[in-house]
């Protein structure tokens, strides 16, 4: 039975009390020209600088100019890792942000965001934009209209500068921020200092102009806002102002540099290429070559070559590119390359699918990405910090087990901004695996695929004196010669596959899974990857608002699969809810295959949008109340 959920106007977390630092903010407008991204990112950064915890995520079309973008910023006094359905402040740069698109624009229809505004929330809009105020039809919220362009013009002219739209209209993005600061009682100087940092030396004259725009926007917003006080205020927490605000793509890039990855290949694709572009910028500072290849087949095979030559190598892609990497992945595995590390930033499939949207649809594909039976490791981080740390470990595993490693991340991790103290890379072990040297063999020829007890054959990096060997994508002997004899075939198959058992045994528990929350709980949520954020945020809410004690079994290592521990945890659980961003419940299928346990209660989402904290709360509440089986969520 399919239960579909998604009642747009249902308040999910209504709360009338004064909320300090617990803000849900959203800006919407057209891509590129609207300044949506810069407004949101500057505001998020200002909040982070003020010592607040921030989580910020974006929704955008696969389009460069004009289509709708919405960008959320959530702040808190405790770490946050997800968004909530309602927004306290909605900044609308156009009509679409409020009402969505007219019916006839079928292919990009959406319902707008007006229904998300919390009771007593505020809509701030551009008075000059073509917005039909009478259509707002909500008397439980407030509307503040500001004339963005006039405001910028006045601010510039006040400083004795002649207004020039081409030059000065970029400062429009300061208007929503200034207005937000006013309502939130947040000092605009948090923003001004950021502007000064971002502007180049010869543009510092713009700092003062920006400050004036912020000031005027704040003043006018305060005047236009009817009420005394807005119910959310932002109080700086100077004791915490050192944390980072970072996206998953950047966190992974930094981890690759830290791990000594010398060679990264890529072919442009959303949402993966931001990671490679970040690394490209580091090429003058660190020993890393970032090569933009002609396609993902080339990307993959170049990385395999570099890995055989002894350099830590990586590539990064999304589903369509990963499809092309299949052949090279099998090649890496049969030739026992040390890696490469492949970061798969999932997006909505199949085919071109939803290029810029969230999904967890590629789990089963990542588990069996190519023909034949071969070992590789698949590991899924739950957030940006885990993505960095797991990427670091992935290089160790590639070197140690001499097989490719797939880091299965997604758009939600890639594009979301989150505050972190650090990436947690310091002190992680470095393991380059077993090397072969001339002294080890004496006069015997080197055997690249030597049968050993562990299955691991010490590797001679190309260039090692005396280690000349050839290996091949054909089945081969210990010495890498093509061979089709049955005994050898079986021995080499077993040797390769055996390495997976070793990996399962050696990889410490913390990289295999985590049980978040109390050992014993009414409900055990099971998931993998980026649903970690909304799930961990939902746990305390389930307890405090719904009296449901819940814990979360996050499975990180998907191949080799920690079957016995998962079986044990699930057998002990009272009520299990599987949460996944896909249609089929792919982790559920894997669990059934590996443990024999079939998870009946599922909360699935395949609308191309990530789970919110509220959706997890809602799903667990519904599953606690009744036996629903398969529950599908969407809050368009």
């Amino acid at each position, binding site marked *: 039975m399919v239960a579909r959920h998604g009642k747009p106007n249902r308040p999910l977390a209504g709360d009338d009390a004064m909320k300090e630092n617990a803000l849900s903010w959203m800006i919407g407008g057209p891509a590129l020209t609207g300044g949506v991204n810069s407004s949101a990112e500057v505001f998020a950064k200002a909040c982070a600088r003020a010592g607040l915890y921030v989580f910020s995520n974006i929704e955008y079309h696969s389009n460069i100019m004009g289509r709708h973008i919405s960008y959320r910023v959530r702040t808190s006094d405790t770490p946050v890792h997800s968004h909530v359905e309602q927004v306290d402040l909605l900044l609308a740069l156009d009509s679409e942000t409020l009402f969505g698109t007219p019916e006839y624009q079928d292919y990009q229809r959406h319902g707008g965001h007006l229904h998300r505004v919390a009771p007593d929330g505020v809509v701030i809009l551009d008075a000059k934009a073509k917005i039909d105020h009478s259509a707002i039809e909500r008397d439980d919220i407030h509307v503040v209209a500001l004339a963005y362009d006039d405001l910028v013009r006045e601010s510039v002219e006040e400083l004795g500068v002649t207004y020039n739209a081409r030059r000065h209209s970029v400062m429009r993005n300061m208007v929503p921020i200034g207005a937000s600061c006013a309502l939130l009682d947040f000092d605009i100087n948090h923003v001004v200092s950021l502007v000064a940092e971002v502007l180049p030396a010869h543009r510092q004259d713009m700092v003062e102009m920006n400050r004036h725009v912020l000031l005027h926007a704040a003043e006018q917003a305060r005047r236009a806002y009817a009420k005394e006080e807005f119910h959310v205020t932002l109080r700086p927490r100077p004791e915490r102002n050192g944390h980072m605000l970072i996206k998953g793509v950047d966190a992974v890039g930094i981890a690759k540099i830290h791990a000594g990855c010398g060679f990264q290949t890529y072919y442009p694709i959303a949402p993966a290429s931001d990671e490679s572009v970040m690394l490209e910028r580091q090429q003058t500072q660190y020993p890393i070559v970032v090569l933009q290849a002609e396609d993902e087949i080339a990307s993959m095979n170049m990385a*395999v070559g570099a890995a055989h*030559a002894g350099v830590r190598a990586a590539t990064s892609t999304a589903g369509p590119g990963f499809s092309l990497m299949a052949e090279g992945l099998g090649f890496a595995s049969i030739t026992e390359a040390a890696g490469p590390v492949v970061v798969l930033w999932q997006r909505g499939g199949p085919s071109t699918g939803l290029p810029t949207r969230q999904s967890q649809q590629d789990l089963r594909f990542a588990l069996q990405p190519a023909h034949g039976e071969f070992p590789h490791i698949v590991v899924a981080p739950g957030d940006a910090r885990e993505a960095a740390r797991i990427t670091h470990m992935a290089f160790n595993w590639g070197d140690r087990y001499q097989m490719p490693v797939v880091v299965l991340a997604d758009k939600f991790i890639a594009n979301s901004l989150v505050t972190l103290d650090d990436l947690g890379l310091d002190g992680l072990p470095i393991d380059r695996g077993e090397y072969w040297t001339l002294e080890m063999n004496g006069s015997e020829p080197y055997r690249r695929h030597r049968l050993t007890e562990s299955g691991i054959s010490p590797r001679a*990096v190309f*260039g090692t004196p005396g280690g000349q*060997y050839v290996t091949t*994508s054909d089945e081969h002997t210990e010495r890498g010669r093509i061979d089709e004899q049955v005994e050898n075939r079986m021995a080499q198959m077993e040797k390769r596959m055996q390495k997976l058992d070793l990996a399962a045994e050696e990889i410490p528990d913390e990289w295999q899974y985590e049980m978040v929350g109390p050992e014993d709980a009414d409900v055990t949520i099971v998931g993998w990857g980026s649903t970690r954020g909304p799930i961990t945020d939902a746990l305390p809410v389930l307890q405090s608002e719904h009296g449901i004690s819940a814990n979360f079994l996050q499975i990180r290592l998907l191949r080799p699969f920690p079957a016995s521990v998962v079986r044990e945890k699930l057998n002990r659980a009272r009520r299990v809810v599987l949460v996944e961003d896909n249609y089929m419940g792919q982790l559920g299928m894997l669990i059934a295959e590996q443990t024999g346990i079939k998870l009946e209660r599922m909360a699935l989402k395949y609308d191309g949008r990530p789970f919110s904290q509220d959706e997890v709360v809602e799903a667990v509440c519904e599953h606690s109340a009744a036996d629903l089986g398969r529950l599908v969520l969407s809050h368009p």
Partner: protein
Amino acid sequence: MVVADTERLTAKTFGVEDSHPDWCGGCGDFGILSAVKQALAKLGRPPHEVAVISGIGCSGKIPHYINAYGLHTLHGRALNVATGVKLANQDLEVLVAGGDGDGYGIGAGYFVNSGRRNVNLAYLVHNNGVYGLTKGQAAPTMRRGQKTKGMAEAAIQESVNPIGLAIASGYTFIARGYAMAQPDLVDLIVRAVQHRGTALIDILQPCPIYNDLMTIDFFRGRDIGHNRTYRLADEGFDGRVHDPSNQDEIVAKQQAAIAKSFEWGDRIPIGVLYQLDAPTYEDELAGRLPELGTSSLLDLAAPGQDISRLQDAYR
């Protein structure tokens, strides 16, 4: 295993005693293998500093018979793998080998883009006109209207002109060799390896099993009374660009090479068709990070890089 003495390198040094080619008798691949080993002996690099990367096909098996590092990769991907190997360790001498199907068919995209990139590699294409290993289907080099004994019907697709394609793709050394013209082929391989940048040698390779059109007798010209192949150098052809800053000379030399590449029939040119000294991909990388001008990534990219500055940029 002993490390070879560079003072006394011979073709035998690069041979593998206990691994025997499984090519058919009379196959041109034997000639190419022999020339590669002789060329390596002349080049003076010890076996462990050489890597031979190949595709899939009869030709792709060549690394198994050479004492050097080697990867027998995937059909059409040899250039990709070789690019990764070379950029990881520039101290290696990297040779790439594969069939005409491998390079000009399934690997055509990589053939083109490797030319643009100009990594310091020597690429030997075994041009036998057919897909040998899959039993004689037409390779992209098979001319329209031709039909070998193994083909069911005559080719109805136009053939690719590898030399013209290489010129258009930016290869900086382009030559044609003939598998049975040993001293010439050895010399071409030596020059291709010594060239800084991506060097292509399209090597005409008889496949006596499947291609009864491009036989040894055909190249010898039994039917016309003289060798079909002739040396470009003997006719004063000079494909080398002497002044790389002179765009006119570059264009003229490229046009001359393309014109020569169409010669076929009673006269088939052999030798260097084009050569240009241009910055390699490695040179460009050293422009970004000067250390790469003197050291390999293998030595530079150590785990544990200090990322505190990078992390702080996000604070």
